[in-house]
């Protein structure tokens, strides 16, 4: 898994590429934990760009859900960007549509935090 961390205004965008599956998923967990740490009490504003993610398994899905709950607990918010194909199917099947805000356009995702 490759994760590129970018900033736009006070929003952090994580561009993820590869697989969010098995133990690889822990890289994503660590990256998100780091962002919560950096926010240090301030509101963490995170966009998870899944455009280049090909595979997610139940473990990876769990990591994404865990990211949601821990950001939520810290008063922040996470939005998903470019959720397509197989991953969209998984999120629909697992009934996670309701908990995540999803966008297909980066500007809209960033603007949603303002």
């Amino acid at each position, binding site marked *: 898994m490759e994760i590129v961390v970018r900033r736009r205004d006070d929003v952090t965008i994580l561009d993820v590429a590869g697989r969010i599956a*098995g133990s690889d998923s822990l890289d994503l967990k660590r990256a998100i934990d780091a962002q919560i740490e950096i926010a240090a009490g301030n509101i963490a504003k995170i966009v998870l760009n899944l455009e280049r993610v090909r*595979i997610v398994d139940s473990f990876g899905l*769990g*990591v994404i*859900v865990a990211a949601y709950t821990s950001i939520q607990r810290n008063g922040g918010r996470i939005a998903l960007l470019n959720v397509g194909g*197989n991953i969209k199917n998984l999120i629909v*099947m*697992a*009934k996670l549509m309701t*908990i995540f805000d999803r966008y297909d356009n980066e500007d809209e995702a960033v603007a949603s935090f303002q």
Partner: protein
Amino acid sequence: MDRTPDGHVISLDIPSSMQLVYVLDSVISQILKEMGFDDESREQVNLAVIEAGTNAIKHGNKEDVNKRARFEFILNQDKLTVVVQDGGAGFDRNSVENPLNPENLLKSSGRGIFLMETCMDAVTYEAPGTTVRMVKYKKSPSNKQK
């Protein structure tokens, strides 16, 4: 696809280490490709087999490398059957919580069996729950099972 011989059984046997799951991944990917499953079915079966393998290694054999996880792939013209077996204590499918229940939606685990059952056409557990058998049919005009 007539390159698939009928009823052939391929067996794979690995020590229970998650580090070795790549072998399972490469075998199932290649079988699905050669059998001529469509892309969507390939993603689904691949996911289900990895989930079942992970359960056998983690929950069944508790990552004890001296215990083995055993896979059988039964190739038929119209379907692929995958049997996954571990050397653990087994479990009762019916006592596993439904991850779609609202109180479970925010849990970070418990979606493996659900994904297996969603992705495959049939999933059965053989008592005492150390063996799971999964079937996926090929989609084709002459084969309307799915």
